């Protein structure tokens, strides 16, 4: 028994020491969750080579869990959505948005509808979706919750619960497509990148579900880093991380996100998200 205990003790000590020197990051689970590890372990290897420290990726299950991990310093770097990034940075003083995807300067939400509704794509907000059944994506998503809710409130001057016959949260952009395609919900809203990927993958039947409206563009995903990394990993570490992200050129790595490239970002780029979040009541 004594042997077992001492072994256990050494094991515990080893695991905690290893942790102290490792730079850890996470990413919100927005799509292709099943292969998160293989997607992001490659990114960890790349960052490890560039930064000269051990880099580890930990998978999380929800937007909230990603924010919590950042808050708890369990991860020092995170690939957040617009809203989750704002939430995380509000709670961690000194943290910064350092890079965003090329596509994230002008991200878009698509409203989609089942063909039985007879709704067609138009330039203006589709007022006819009133009294239909409607599904958001995950509760914490920028493109699947915050922005569509903002436009719904702006148009109808009412909360989504009062506008629609029923409001659901599919939990995930791909599930939103499935639920609207099957008619379980008549209308839904989702991340345009996921829609395009699923169209390419042949998972969408255009005779059953189609786009009815595209929102104006807004800033979305970004890499956020904690303010205290330089004290732990040495002066200039934050700049080194930023540079490594901006210089990530391997298409195979970029496909993990999926983004064309990364470009510089600042906290102030996300002010529109803060404003909208406060209006909708999702931020205090």
């Amino acid at each position: 028994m004594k042997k077992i205990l001492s072994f256990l003790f050494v094991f515990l000590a080893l695991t905690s020491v290893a942790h102290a020197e490792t730079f850890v990051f996470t990413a919100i689970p927005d799509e292709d969750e099943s292969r998160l590890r293989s997607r992001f372990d490659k990114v960890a290897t790349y960052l490890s080579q560039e930064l000269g420290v051990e880099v580890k990726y930990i998978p999380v299950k929800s937007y909230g869990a990603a924010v919590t991990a950042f808050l708890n310093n369990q991860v020092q770097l995170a690939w957040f959505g617009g809203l989750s990034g704002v939430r995380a940075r509000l709670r961690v003083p000194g943290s910064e948005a350092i890079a965003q995807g090329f596509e994230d300067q002008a991200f878009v939400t698509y409203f989609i509808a089942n063909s039985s509704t007879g709704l067609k794509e138009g330039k203006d907000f589709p007022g006819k979706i009133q009294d239909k059944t409607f599904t958001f994506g995950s509760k914490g998503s920028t493109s699947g919750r915050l922005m569509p809710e903002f436009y719904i409130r702006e148009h109808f001057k009412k909360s989504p619960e009062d506008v629609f016959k029923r409001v659901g949260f599919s939990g995930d952009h791909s599930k939103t497509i499935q639920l609207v395609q099957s008619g379980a919900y008549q209308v839904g809203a989702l991340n345009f990148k996921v829609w395009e990927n699923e169209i390419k993958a042949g998972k969408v039947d255009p005779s059953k579900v189609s786009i009815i409206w595209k929102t104006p563009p807004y800033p979305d995903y970004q890499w956020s880093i904690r303010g205290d990394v330089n004290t732990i990993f040495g002066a200039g570490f934050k700049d080194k991380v930023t540079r490594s992200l901006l210089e990530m050129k391997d298409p195979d790595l970029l496909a993990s996100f999926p983004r064309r490239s990364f470009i510089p970002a600042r906290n102030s780029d996300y002010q529109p998200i803060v404003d909208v979040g406060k209006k909708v009541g999702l931020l205090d």
Partner: protein
Amino acid sequence: MSFIGIAVFCVLVGDLEISTLDPWQEMGRMALGAVSPDFFTTENLGRAFLNTLAFAIIGVALGSALGFALSMVFHNPGVRFFCAFIRAIHELFWGLIFLQAFGLTPLTGVLALAIPYAGIFAKVYSEILDESDQAHLKAAPEGTGFISFFLFVRIPDVWAHIKTYTLYRLECGLRSSTVLGFIGLPTIGFHLESAFKQGNYEEVAALLYLFFALIASMRWWMRPKLVPFYVATALFVLPVGADISMVNVVRFLTEDIVPGPLRWVESYNVDTFYIFGQWLRVVVVEQALPGIVNTVVLTMIALVGAGGLTLIFFPLVSAKFFGRWPRKAGHMFLVIMRSTPEYIMAYVFLQLWGPSMLPAIVALSLHNGAIIGHLIGHHADQLPARADAPKGLNLYAYDVLPRIYRQFLAFLFYRWEVIMRETAILGILGIHTLGFYVDSAFVDIRFDRALVLIVITALLNISVDKISRTVRTRLRLSRSPDIV
């Protein structure tokens, strides 16, 4: 009878509309997945499998030890309330709470299981001890010390009962440990939820089949003698205690859960209280009240639904009605019904019938009907057969049913509180139960709000438990059914 009346009323106010148009494409993909499971796509499957077992074993072992200690002082009303409170909070919510304080560490998962289980164990152990044969107790010689009295008189008397119950809870522990994967702990549930979300139904089927096999085979591998070995192995798999940062624990307790308007306030004045009042109004009036209504309506319908299904399910596993092979099939059916996470069942029905309470009601009824059916089936087998016993439907309606009816009601009322706790999970599907609002508060990083809602949920559960106990006493049902 009045319960059926209440359920009928709830059906009238409940939202049960069927609205889907074309579920068959998705259902077809699910069916295809079910017949072509793919065991090789899941990353780190072996590890997830080990983790599932390890969390369940350590969690249940710790819960049972704590519960046993609490059962010694269970007659104290304070302890009783404390136990009722900790078991009234679903393990998913305990998990979400510990996730904030301890992060994604083994300790989070172990405590999320051990704490509510300790509350359940304390209650059931104390009832088992109370109902042990009083004659034995009086037979002990005068002057027997408390400890030896306890070890040599009381424990041997109830040992078999405690053992059966604890092993039964381990099955529940395996289910809970899997479900904790849904919030990020590295168990099978983690991969199950991912695969399900992505629509990889071949992988979903493979994971579910492995899980069914694990549960169905429990009686072969779970030997009491092997328990110390399992616990030691589990501790190796999950190094509980590593990576805890006190900074986070302190921050969680002193900042995160303090109501927003009162956080970082230097001096309290009328304005602070006004803003706090506004905050409380939003939580209580806009969330808790509608949440309570939906939770109660859903629970009542599901309770009666579970009762109805139990009466259909129990003969499937009873030797009084079926031979060896049909019974084996019946067992398998009930294992599948009670082990498939309600969340997944509800999702399948959501595809079929569209969004309303109906998918949740059917999922909860099936799940709980299968659990009670399994227990009643066993109970029915223990009834001595009469020489002139009728056969078939007559046996069912005029002999077995009247004889098991009291036990059936006892189990059902016992399960009431559990069903209510389970409605929390379905909140995550968008049915606005209390659980829905709790989940939203966690997503919004509003732990202050989450805490108020969790306390309200717990109090609602405790009231239901109280009513259920009163009803059981009035009906003169045994205080504790053998195993639930």
